[in-house]
């Protein structure tokens, strides 16, 4: 086995792409609206891992990727708050969280 001096960046990228694809699968296949929100959080975390890996390996002096990650975390928190408020309002109107019953925009 060849000797490494650090973990290769490919390892981080593979983990983040697998996490992103799991998030997409959950987004497409969940019936429960809360689980859809959780899948979105998983995808945002995959993006964050990507940004952090490149920030540490490419730009380890001016860590701009870490600043970007901070902003992504902020937007994700706002998105979660508004998403769950929309979910509560939907639940009050339709008494279900089944994604298949939210079809008012379907023609």
């Amino acid at each position, binding site marked *: 086995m060849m000797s*490494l001096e*650090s*973990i290769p*960046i*490919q390892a981080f*990228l593979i*983990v983040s*792409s*697998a*996490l992103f694809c*799991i*998030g*997409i*699968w*959950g987004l*497409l*296949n*969940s019936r*429960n609206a*809360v*689980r859809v929100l*959780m*899948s979105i959080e*998983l995808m945002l*975390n995959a993006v*964050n*891992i990507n940004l*952090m890996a490149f920030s*540490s*390996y*490419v730009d*380890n*002096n001016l*860590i*701009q990727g*870490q*600043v970007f*990650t*901070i902003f992504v*975390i*902020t*937007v*994700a*928190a*706002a*998105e*979660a*708050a*508004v998403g*769950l*408020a929309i*979910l*509560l*309002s939907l*639940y009050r109107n*339709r*008494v279900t969280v089944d994604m*298949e*019953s939210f079809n*008012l925009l379907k023609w």
Partner: protein
Amino acid sequence: MSIAITTQIICFTILSLVILIGALGVVLLESIVYSAFLLGGVFMSVAGLYLLLNASFVAAAQVLVYVGAVNVLIIFAIMLVNKKEDLKPINDIKSRRIISTSICLTLLSLLIRVDLTNVWSLSSPQNSIGEESTIRIGEHLFSDYLLPFEVASVLLLMAMIGAIVLARRDVMSKDISTGLPVDQELIEKSSEPLLTNKN
């Protein structure tokens, strides 16, 4: 291989396994409550990966915001909407599953192929600034990223007000400015849900 790099590789392997298995559990488990707690574990492991990348401030922010705020919010939402309901069966669920799974696997193989075949010309993270990263992030936030920082505060305020307006319950019967009765079709009623049994 020195002992430090071996430790790093062991930590990375454990964290990645926890992240991927936890994420699969979040997506696949029947019980939504188990999913929510597994999501907390995934967030903690992602924070561990950040520590491995010499980013202690972002790891702390990840734990505080994701585990402390987002995950707790999701658990509260589950508590408010958790009701046993029999889901209507879908006719073409099998073809949907097959199509979506193949799309996800294709995307994954594409990403991994790009990742492995590309030649990365990178500096190693050995000479990274490490402990100084918190200072550097602060300098960025108050110099060249000042405008996004301020816009983020406005965004958080808007999200807070929007969440309160969307989730609150009481509805006035009269419009404040005109005095006319409010069109109740547009606003939820407190007693009876509007849109049930419409299918």
